[in-house]
Every structure is written in C-alpha cells, then in structure tokens.
C-alpha cells in the first residue's frame, strides 16, 4: 500500500528523469566514534547464537546512523537480571539498537521526536520471528541538521552530555524507580507477563538543545557516568585538540579505559558510591559494569 500511495500514476513522470533537486544548505553534522568494554571481558559465554553481535559490549549496545536530514546516536543497556532466566540480556538491547539504526537509515521519522524512534523500534521487536525477551534502558540523541538542534530522549540511567569549551552545557536526566533500578523498556516471557518492570517508551525524558560548531556530545551507558564525574570527563575531553575521526576514536577509547580502570578500584569514591550513600547505602569504590561511550563532535558540513 505504501508504495502505491507514494507513486501511483506519477511513476512515468519520475522515470522520465525529472529528479527532485536538493537545496544545498550549510548545515551541521556529527563526526562520531564509539568505544566500549564488557564487564567480564572474555569470561562471558557466547550463549545466543541468534543475536546480532555487531556494536555490542557485554549487555550494552549502541548505534551511529544518519540520513539526509539528521545524525542519530543511541545507546542501550540491557538489564543483566535476565541471565537468571536463561535469557541473554544483550539480545534485547542489540535488537533495539539495530532496529533504531535501520529506522534512521530509512528516514521515516521526524528528527524532533526521538521518542518515536524508541517507540517504533520497541514495537518492531514484536514483529521478529525470534521471540525477543529482556529489558533495557535507552538513550537517543538526534541532530537535526537543518536547525542545528539536538533532540534527546532518555529512558533510564544511560544519558548524554553536551560539552562546550570544557564545560557541561547540557545533560539528560536520570530516570529511576528507586536506587539502581532505572526506568526500562521490557518484553517479558508469557509466564512473567505483568510481573516485570516495564515502562512505556513515551515515559522517556526528552529535551531539545541548540548546539554550536565544536560542541562535543557524549552518549553513554551508566557504566561511564557511575564511574566518572563530569569534571573527570571534561578533563579527558580537553585533551582533544582536533575533531578528526581518529582523534575522536582515541578519546572515546581512553574514556572507556579510564572508566573501566576506576570501576575496578575499591577505594575510589565514584559518583555511584556517592549516590549510594545519599540513599543510605554504604558503598565505596567504582561500579563494575559494561561501559559504552559514543562520542560525537558537531562540525560544519562542507
């Protein structure tokens, strides 16, 4: 049906070579790099032979995609508890991300509403022949190339930061039901229906922010934010002197390495331990977790 609506009788005219002229506009685009590490690198058994293994670190997954009008970044953190049910938690997050990626490539969404990307992808998981089980947090950032604005949607405790000249100028809000239990999308097995924590994609926190050339955007799972404070992140980013893809990749990797290092330090006063203490739980040290970082810089397209 959709094709018919799109084309109908105009196919002949289209075939005659009358192409739609694109208006050249000076617009922004993102130069993006991603890096990540799994919590128990090498230990994890390869359980799910059926899942898409691309862009997966442990239970985390991410994607970087773009189409004519927008650049989109996303991360998802699969909830580890599903291991106990014999379900690979990365299955849900990786399917969610790869579906988002395809949605972006097809360009059938409005950049202003990243929540719709999440909602559509979540619905699409049900359309797969493979029964997909699990739950995940998710954070999506869309740069609308035309109006130089990023639109974010964040469900759970992943998040994004915008850093301008060494300072955090914008950040997304965490969403937690209670300490260490973030909002999450979920698909439960039949016998668990109704017993599993499941939030609507539309409960995601959303924001819009005008970006400038040179701004750095970080989209990452809680593995980064629980182990590195904003100051520490900015400090690392300040070492970035240019915006070439290789430099970006190097910085993304070093962020992950530092966070991974700190997460294993039992004496480190991590943001996670501070947060725990604020909730009356006495904790010290980092939080070992899967860590995924997507780092992007806003550059002028030429």
């Amino acid at each position, binding site marked *: *049906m959709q*094709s*018919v609506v799109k084309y*109908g009788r105009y196919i002949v005219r289209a075939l*005659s070579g009358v192409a739609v002229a694109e208006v050249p506009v000076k617009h922004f685009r993102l130069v993006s790099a991603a890096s990540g590490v799994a919590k128990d690198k090498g230990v994890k058994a390869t359980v799910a032979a059926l899942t898409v293994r691309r862009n997966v670190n442990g239970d985390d997954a991410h994607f970087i995609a773009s189409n004519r009008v927008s650049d989109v970044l996303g991360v998802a953190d699969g909830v580890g508890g599903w291991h106990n049910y014999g379900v690979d938690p990365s299955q849900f997050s990786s399917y969610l991300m790869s579906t988002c990626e395809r949605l972006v490539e097809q360009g059938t969404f409005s950049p202003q509403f990243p929540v719709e990307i999440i909602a559509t992808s979540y619905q*699409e998981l049900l*359309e797969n022949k493979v029964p997909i089980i699990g739950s995940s947090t998710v954070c999506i950032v869309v740069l609308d190339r035309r109006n130089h604005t990023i639109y974010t949607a964040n469900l759970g405790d992943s998040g994004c930061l915008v850093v301008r000249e060494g300072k955090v100028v914008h950040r997304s809000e965490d969403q937690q039901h209670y300490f260490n239990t973030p909002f999450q999308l979920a698909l439960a097995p039949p016998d668990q229906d109704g017993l599993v924590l499941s939030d609507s994609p539309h409960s995601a926190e959303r924001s819009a922010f005008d970006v400038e050339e040179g701004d750095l955007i970080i989209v990452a799972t809680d593995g980064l934010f629980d182990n590195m404070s904003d100051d520490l992140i900015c400090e690392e980013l300040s070492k970035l002197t240019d915006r070439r893809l290789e430099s970006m990749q190097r910085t993304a990797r070093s962020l992950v390495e530092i966070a991974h290092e700190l997460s294993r330090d039992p004496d480190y006063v991590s943001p996670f331990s501070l947060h725990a203490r604020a909730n009356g739980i006495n904790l010290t040290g980092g939080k070992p977790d899967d860590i995924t970082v997507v780092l992007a810089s806003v550059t002028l397209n030429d």
Partner: protein
Amino acid sequence: MSDEEHHASSFVLFLLNLKRTLGQLVSSKPRERDEAVKQHPVVEQYAADVVDFSSQYGRDYGLCYTAENLKGPHRIYPRYGDFAEAFVTRTYGIWWDLAPSACEPFQRVATRNTSSDFIDILFKKMVFPNKLEIYETFNPGSTVRILAAQVNHEEDSALRWKVLWEGMPQCAPAVPRVYSPQLDRCDFVTSLIRIEFSHRHLSYYTSLDAVRLLGSAETPDPHEMPDPHETPDPHETDGLDRDNNSCAVRGGGGGGGGDGPARRSAYETRRGDDCRSLVDMPEEVIQYIISFFDILDLCRVAQTCRTLCKHCYDAQQFTELDLQPYWHMITDAALAGLAGRCHLMRRLSLSWCGPYHNLTEAGFVRFLQSCGGNLTCLRLASCTEYVTNSSLKIIVDVCPGLTELDVRCCGRLGDEGFAEIARASRLQRLNLYRTAVRTSEAALIVRNCVHLEMLNFDSCSQIANFHEVAVAIAENLRELKCLNVCRVKSVGNNSLVVIAQTCGAALLELDVGWCVEVSSRDGCLVNLARRCPRLRALYLTSIRTINDRDLQAFAAHCRDLEQLDILGSMGVTPIAVAGVLLECTQLKLLDVSYCTCIEFIDVHRWRQMYPEVTIQKSFKNI
C-alpha cells in the same frame, strides 16, 4: 548513496567473492575478458526504492521481512538464514495450494512457468542494464524472470516492458548467493526493473537481501543501436516476439492476418488431392485439441488459416481467461482486441496486468461492460491503477453472478469501493489482502455477503476494531470455511471466541498469525480446538503464549489437521508436539521455527519418525 559507500561495499563484495571471481576469470575466454575491459564505465547501483510488490511476509510500514528491505546495499550477505532485515515473500512451496482456501486453477494453463510473486525496483540512474545481481540469503533459486521498463517520453503513455531474462526456478544449495543470470541485450535506458519469483519448489521462505544493477549510462555500441525514434510501436509489430505485444493485442476483426493468397492456394491444392488434414476433423475434436494451447499459442494458431482462426476465436475457448502470465502485454488495445471473443467468459484474471497506466480504468471498464456479464470469478491482484471505487461499482453492476473476487494489494480502494463489494451478495470467496478496508466496511461486507466461504483480511491494518467484524461474521456467515486475519492487530481472544462458537463447526482453515492480542489466556485456544473439529490448516504464527495444554487440545479435537504453524511459541515442549504428530495422522506441515523449547535434535528425530510430515525449523547463521 555516496560514492564512498559504493566503493566500500563493492570492495567487500570483491573480497568475499575473490575465490569465485578468480575461478571465473580463469575459465572465461580471452575474448570476453578483452570485451569487459573495452566497455564503457559501468554504473553500479543498489535499489533506490521498491515501487510495487505482490506480497511480503512483514507488515506495511514495518521493518521486519518487508519489501522495503531490498533498498540499499546488502546487509546480510554473506550470512545465510532467516533474517528480519531481508525481503521475504508471503508464501512458499505448495502449502497454500493444498490448503482449503486454495484458489481453483484456471483450465487453460500457461506453458511458461507462472510466477507467484513480483517486485518492482526503482534505481536512481537510468542505465542500459547489462547485469543484475540478486542477493539471496535464504532458500535461493526462486527468480524466474527479469523485465525492464522502457519509458516513452510522452507523459501518460504506456510503458514497454522487455523481458531481459527468463528461466526455470533453480534448485540451489542452501548457501547465500549472488544470482545474476545472463541478461538479454537491452536497447534502451531504464531505471525500473521487475523481478518475478516462483517459489513453489522451495522448502521454506526465500529471503532477498539486496538487488544491484550494473549498466552503462551510454549506449553499449552506438553502431548497432537503432534510433530510439524508429523503435517500432509494439502495437504494430508483426510476428510474435515474446517481448513485444503479441497478436493477442490486435483486434478480433483482422484476425487470421497471416492467411495470404499464396498459402491459401497451396492449401486448396492439397485439399484437392483429397488429403485429410487437421481442419477436416470434427469441430469438437479441434476445439478439444486447441483447448490445451495457452493463450499465446492460440493467437499464433489463429494466424495459420481461416478455419483454425474461426476455432481459435470461438468464444468457447475464452470461457476462462488468465492473463496474469502476460501482464506486460496487456494494454487497453489488447483488451479491446480480446473483447470480441470473450462474451461467454466466466472466469477472468487480470492480476498484475497493465501496471503504471498501461491499462487504464476506461479500458478495463469497457472490456468488462462488453463481456463481463457472465463472470463468476474475477481476480484483480495488484491492479492498483484501475481497481478504484468507481470501477468497482461497475464491476458489481455488470457482473451480478460474481462468486469470487480477489482485489489483493489494490491500494486505491477506499470506503466507497468496499461498500460496493458489499452489494455483490453472491460472493463466496473474497480476498482483501493488503487493502485499506476499515471496520465498518468489513462488517458491512460480512453482513451482506452471507454466502462467503473464504474470507481473507490478511494484513488489513486499517481494521481498528475487529471484534465488530467478528460479531457480524458469527451472526451471518454460517458457511464460512476459511478465515485469514493474519496481522490484523485488533484481533483479540474475544473475537476468536465469538467466531469459534458459531462458525467453528464449519471452519476448515484459520490464520491468526501475528495477531499480538491473541493469547492462550483464559483457555481461548483450547476452546478454539474444541469448537473447530474440522480444522485442516491452522496458523498460530508468533502467538508466543501457546503452551502444551493448547497443543494437547488440538491433538485431541482437530484430528484432520494437515497444516499447523506455531512459529515462535515460547511455552511448547517437545512432549506436546510429539502428541500432535502422533494424533493428527493427516498432518503434512508442521512449523516449529523459533519455538524456544524445541531443539534441532527433536526435529531431527521427528523427521525420521514421521517422514510424511514436513517439519520446519528455521535458522540463522552468523
């Protein structure tokens, strides 16, 4: 797509195919190699858009298993398996022909292998095509025909389709492949390609990943090319080139045109020798013999002599007319030509015919008005251009005896059109696959067409409240045998309960696949099994909640089951499946793909124990 992507993807492809490519180079003759170097720069492009298609496994506007997935470079290749990112057709094999809902075939069978599905692909640049690469990633071997469209630059004039390749379906090994049959030379630039598939021989769904067109933007060899302005008008072409419009196109009045004076005298001489010839046989025998010819042959034979022409143009030969295999030849003029012989026509299939304005609504209506009066069966699958609200009104008015109507994929039909269908009160079979029918019109049809035996609402996503339709079905359709509501989102357990209660005893086939609201809860499926003892085909695809209790009920009550699909069930254990295999002795097809508790080893054991049952378990290779 950027050039970088182009180069990157072609490079990857090159690496993957390195071994094979080298092998081909070594085996090819030196002359061919020289030619390859000499040719013009080749434009390589992946599909820019999917314009039309006859069926897809996924839902409209979805991402999984949809035709849109053919767009862009390949994503799956060189992996092999049942991936959601591929284009998958709605059917495979012979199972839908064996099901109770199967369509009665036409008497006159086309000699060429008939295609079951097609897809129209648009590319960005117009090229002279010299190679088409089809990335097949699951059950390859279904491609049977490739056509290119030539555009006449006058707007709204007919497209001319040229068959670039035609062949048999292939029995290919279960490995991913890039299929690129040798294309015929094409003397025009094109950007619209139609690929036809036949998957009756396949053991499971076929998956296509991408399509790449290679061709040059310039004329391959300017010396040999005819001036485009001198390209003969297909309507006036003599002879019976298989890629041109055939003689079927030309009017009935001038029939038997090849009957020149020289030939006639030779014929009469022989007659004078008292030599018995074909035409001296009794008329009934001649009629019987030519009833085995396909339409094209019939038209060819008509050109041999007056007597045979008379027989071939006899309206008795045109009581059943299936033009789907010749869809690319059908224009307004072609139908006008046929109209003279079709006044006894009872069954007509114009499926796929005259896409992109080759056949206009006016031409279709004229044909129907002149010879549609006796029609009982009318198939109009993918006839988007001329199956409209207004033409449907005429169909219903002109064909009062219509018992079968197929308007699959006719996307321009609106509410008024469906309301017109409701007036065809003698309908027994109605196929509305992928149409925009809505709740009130669907209910109206059901209330008025009380003789419906086969009702197909597959992928009718606009039915927002199926329960209203279900109640109407329960109240009116006492003879309903086959119901397909696959992918109708609003189908819930309550609808199934209502239908099973009153129609269950007669129901032979039910497809509720991908209805996410249907579940095993409240014993709904057990109840269904009890109420529908005669079920022969049951599709419960992706109803995740099916459990052993449900299967035991089907094994106990539905002893006639021939086809059962429980793909993607999460609760079914091997014990219950074994029970079904044991009890349902008529079982021929069982699909347990992606059932989380069923292992390949179970399936393997069952296949040995029940060799007469085809047991499907799909897979993906990473």
